[in-house]
């Protein structure tokens, strides 16, 4: 796999004018979604340039979901700062905050669809809520998104009739409905069979390169994963979460931290990073 160091990131055409970074976490302390007082990660410094394609690995309970939820603005860092295209993202739905918030799309693990709505309504809801489009135009967009995920013929069914893998795909269609510039994926490959894994990797690559469904703009992607190996040859930047720390793979500290078998194998063998002996 060709690994591009942080300094050689490709710059996408959709970079914000006010900041070179699409997403920045500055010395962030991240709490748990279930118990915000519980600290899961500390001193997180993460700078994502437009067009980046990150995958953040970590074992169970390492704080992947909390990390990605914080990056999506679902909760504020307990300390430090989160910026999206130079704008600090905080809680609230005021117009100024909203425009920044809508630059980010998040696909939850399992989709987290609205169970009382049909698949089409799930995808249509953000379009209808935020855009004053005629219903017909909204329905056409919805149909195109459902076609992308291979569920156009099941538009009128409810999420309860679908399996986890399909619900997650609808979650992707819903996240893409407003054409965000940053797409965050919370552990999209967990529990999937090889065919679905391949589909997710392909669609992520296409979105990163610029898919017609988002008008061909290259998207900034960040995904979390239990296992970094499937992403080899797809993602361009890697990081791991270990011991309450966020460690980019090109950071020498990560190699120092690679003192257990799992990390040694993951980093040394698969990603081509030589661990530094203590």
């Amino acid at each position, binding site marked *: 796999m060709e690994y591009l160091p942080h300094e050689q990131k490709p710059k996408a055409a959709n970079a914000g004018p006010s900041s070179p970074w699409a997403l920045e976490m500055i010395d962030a302390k991240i709490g748990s979604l279930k118990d915000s007082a519980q600290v899961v990660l500390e001193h997180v410094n993460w700078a994502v340039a437009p067009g980046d394609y990150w995958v953040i690995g970590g074992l169970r309970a390492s704080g992947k979901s909390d990390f990605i939820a914080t990056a999506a603005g679902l909760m504020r860092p307990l300390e430090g700062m989160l910026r999206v295209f130079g704008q600090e993202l905080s809680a609230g739905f005021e117009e100024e905050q*909203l425009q920044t918030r809508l630059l980010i*799309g998040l696909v*939850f693990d399992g989709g*987290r669809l609205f*169970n009382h709505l049909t698949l089409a309504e799930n995808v249509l809801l953000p379009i*209808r*809520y935020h855009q004053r489009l005629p219903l017909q135009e909204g329905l056409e967009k919805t149909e195109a998104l459902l076609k992308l995920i291979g569920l156009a013929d099941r538009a009128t069914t409810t999420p309860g009739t679908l399996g986890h893998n399909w619900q997650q795909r609808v979650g992707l269609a*819903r996240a893409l409905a407003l054409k965000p510039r940053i797409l965050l994926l919370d552990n999209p490959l967990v529990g999937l069979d090889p065919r679905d894994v391949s589909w997710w990797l392909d669609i992520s690559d296409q979105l990163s390169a610029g898919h017609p469904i988002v008008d061909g703009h290259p998207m900034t992607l960040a995904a979390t994963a239990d296992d970094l190996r499937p992403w080899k040859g797809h993602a361009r930047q890697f990081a791991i979460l270990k011991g309450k720390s966020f460690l980019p793979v090109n950071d020498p500290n990560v190699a120092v931290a690679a003192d257990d078998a799992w990390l040694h194998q993951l980093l040394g063998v698969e990603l081509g990073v030589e661990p530094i002996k203590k």
Partner: protein
Amino acid sequence: MDNGTASGFDEPETSLLWRSSLPRSYLNFFGRRIIRFFHALHGLGAFALITLGVSFSKFRVAGHVIRPLIFAHLARSGLRLLPMIIFLAVALGLVVIGQTVSLLTRVGAQQFLGTVMVTVVVRELGPLLTALVVLSRIGTANVIELGTARALGEVEALEVLGIDPVHYLVVPRVIGMALGIFSLTIYLLLGALASGYLWAFIQDVPLMPGDYFRQLAGALRGLDFVLLAVKTCSFGVIIAVVTCYYGLAQPLRLEEVSRATIRAVAQSVTACVLLDALFIIVYLLA
């Protein structure tokens, strides 16, 4: 004995044997209840203010999405409960009005008929009974739906999409429930007063329909209509806010939904009765 638990009620029954003295445990009991009451009051007040703020600040936001939701909740809290309300109206007419008319006529106190009907049925029983029906049928469903949505992470999904959960989930429920209880109360009162006369007629009470309705009309004042509207809408707002608060405002696990529902029902009933008492004072002063 201070057991250190938050509620003081979850301990096994056997631990009661180890209590050092009853008076102290009573103090603990009431102390915790009072602290919990004020804590709940604070949370509910804040949630109500947030809802009010969002209702105004997002009045023109996504109207084409929110308006159909309001109509859906109005139908749910109003139209779909109409058969139940008509049944209760007939029962109320039988139990209260029919017997009251018959009794007053027997003791020669027919001239108080209108006053008694307006005081008992229009001002008190009608609105309160309707509110309790809506609470039991729709309020409980609110807590379960919203609590489950919260537990399954649907609320976070709304937030990520830039949709304010209070705007999308709470505001339509508050407006729909307020208008629903108001409308249902009107139907309940009309049905109860009409069926009441019907039951009196069946019992051969010598009272002409014209006299009956004339007395009712004579006892009603303009203020009754205004206060009836305010009271019923307030009941709707209270039930919607309390049930939405317990469903939405705090992170829930699925197993906590039933407890949240019980609390919401208990506090809604208490709040409605207290508001009713407040309106009695207004009626007495007016």
